[in-house]
């Protein structure tokens, strides 16, 4: 056996794991949910509104829905359906992209 863990090693690992737990909890504390929704099509801002007023936005190829403080791509006629599969987003800096139809939904 080449590896002999000493007492100090265990302490170092425990401290590192504590740091990990601390950073995870820091992330949860600082996590802000977003407020504004912006929808872009062909790089043009089509819609800007609150995340908390339920609406549906009809685009030329897509249907975006805002419901219960979450936004998602309800329908899309694109081939890969990645945007629809992305699911619901609610946190700041998250986004849904539909590349074939050049649609970007972002939360801020």
């Amino acid at each position: 056996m080449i590896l002999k863990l000493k007492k100090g090693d265990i302490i170092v690992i425990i401290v590192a794991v504590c740091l990990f737990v601390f950073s995870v909890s820091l992330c949860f504390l600082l996590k802000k949910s977003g407020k504004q929704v912006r929808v872009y099509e062909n790089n043009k801002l089509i819609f800007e509104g609150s995340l908390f007023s339920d609406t549906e936005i009809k685009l030329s190829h897509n249907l975006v829905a805002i419901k219960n403080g979450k936004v998602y791509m309800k329908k899309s006629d694109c081939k890969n359906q990645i945007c629809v599969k992305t699911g619901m987003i609610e946190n700041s800096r998250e986004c849904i992209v539909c590349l074939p139809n050049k649609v970007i939904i972002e939360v801020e």
Partner: protein
Amino acid sequence: MFAEQGDNRSRIKSICIYSVLTVCCIVFGYIETLIPTALIAPGIKLGLANSVALMLIIFGDIKGAVLVNTARILLSAVLFGSLFSLLFSLCAGTASVAVCILVAKSKSVSAVGISIAGAVTHNTVQTAIAFFVLNKGVLFYLPILIISAIISGFVIAVISILVSKKLKSILSF
């Protein structure tokens, strides 16, 4: 006379060894890019170059570890990086070697502990700099970086223990 000659010899030997080790570090930096660790999470790398500094610390050559590490950072910044990347790696590299040396002073820590302490320090310092210089969003990346530092620190420790056994006769000053 003889003693002087011997001194000169050992000086030349240490200059040679340090330069070879520094070049090793830079080559390791390239080899690292061939290992697709970025697939797990972007920005993560193994840190093979640290195994050299770690090995020197295992041998008790603290001056050599600081020298080789600083030379590696400066050279790879001149060759591949920018002034901005130099700031990042110099701060993080120096901090991690300092922590390694401090941890190594304790007799009850083996290479595994030294390596993990250095790796975690490196990633934490780098995230801290990015937090103040770039944006606050990088903070959410810290947990991934810490957990990867623990794993890669362990791997690097195993590698350097294995290699240091082979190099013991060459690297003894």
